[in-house]
């Protein structure tokens, strides 16, 4: 079971070239706003299997990693019971 989940992300492109992810659109259409981006760094995700720029995000009070891998965004899915 792959733990890599590609997601739709709505991005705010600033005029200085920086980008800021605003909210994630889950595949059932529900939007999850990103309350805060806490850290941006290059990183690999061993769990999901991928590498790119990692945004440490605060979503509904919990911390989640959002990865930009080349031109697609993915999150690490939680282990399924």
């Amino acid at each position, binding site marked *: 079971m792959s733990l890599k989940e590609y997601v739709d992300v709505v991005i705010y492109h600033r005029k200085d070239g920086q980008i800021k992810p605003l909210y994630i659109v889950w595949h059932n259409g529900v939007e999850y706003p990103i309350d805060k981006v806490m850290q941006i*760094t290059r*990183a*690999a995700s061993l769990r999901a*299997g991928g*590498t790119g720029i990692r945004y440490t995000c605060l979503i509904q009070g919990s911390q989640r990693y959002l990865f930009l891998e*080349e031109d697609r965004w993915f999150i690490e899915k939680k282990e399924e019971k």
Partner: protein
Amino acid sequence: MERTIFHCDLNNFYASVECLHHPEYRNIPIAVGGDVEKRHGIILAKNMLAKKAGVTTGEALWQAKLKCPDLTLVKPNFSQYLRFSGLVRKIYAEYSDRIESFGIDEVWIDVTEIVGRYASPRALADEIRNRIREEVGITASIGVSFNKVFAKLGSDYKKPDATTVITRENMKEIVFPLPVEDLLYVGRKTTVKMHQLGIYTIGDCARYDVAILRRKFGKWGEYIWTFANGLENSPVLKEGREPMVKSVGNSTTAPRDLKNLDDVRIVCYVLSESVAARLREAGLRCMTVAVSIRDNDLEGCVRQMKLPCPSDLSDEIAKAAMTLFQANVDFQKPLRSIGVKAADLCVGEVPLQLSIFEDQEKREENLALEKTIDGIRRRFGAQSIQRLRMLEDTLLSGFNPKQEHVIFPESYFKG
């Protein structure tokens, strides 16, 4: 000033990239290898579990399967490997501008200028290793030494994800007991000859009389002796100073063994057309044509010849290559793979010395013809226009070396 040189080797590079992307591969033996049906069947890389089962790089897929029946074979994904190689290179570039690549997964870095800011060379090497693991998700082993050859020995010394420091003080303990074939440019044949001289370790070689080595192996004997004694002192080339293109070549493992010159001719023309098209694309012409030959026991050789005048025409390159094949292949054993390479490149725009023995007008016509063919192929695909000869055996001619990405082994002596 004593230099500090790193040699960074990405461990099991292709297999590591596959394991990162496919978590399900991490606990089973896997190997990245060519296409089984098309017989491009060798192991390019394997993960640690496959290594434990005895799978080695370069062996045929079926041999590996015998040793390790549950081996999972993965098709190579070169564009992904190039991306990872680039990501790692970006990290190196933060530390030095002297970065010289040796293949896709190995580099030398001259860190002499920056190493003083760290507690020790090892601390810097460990920092780079950690960053590669965290940021890219694969592991590297780094050899630290005062020259390139010993740095490379260091990165091979302990794997994976390790740092080995070789100094003038500890070189006798670390380097000298290693088998002599670990040195660059000591291949299968040289190893046998070295053993005949009683040279089994690098230490044996270092202590040997260099005059005898020179007599036995020519200038290479001297190079190898210099390597063994840690006297090699070539600089790490600056990024971007590496010669851009020194040769353009294509090689292929044929879908079936080549049994006679007609078979060779078909494959040779496919390769030559690709080489010529790539030369024209880059605006280059070649003065030398080289061929590589490998029989079904994987024994091989390389032969080359000069052209009468610089060329980017597939006909001229193929004819030269065929001359070389004719002179050097006796078909005692059928051939498994052949390659055609154009070397001694010059820029296409420079004025040409015309030869009075060549029909220049005919050459111009041929060039126009080949450019037209390039155009047709670009628009309608490689198979859209072909030589009649290619239809004699569509199995042999049915590949497109220009598109199928090939990564060539590199030579140590550059520039």
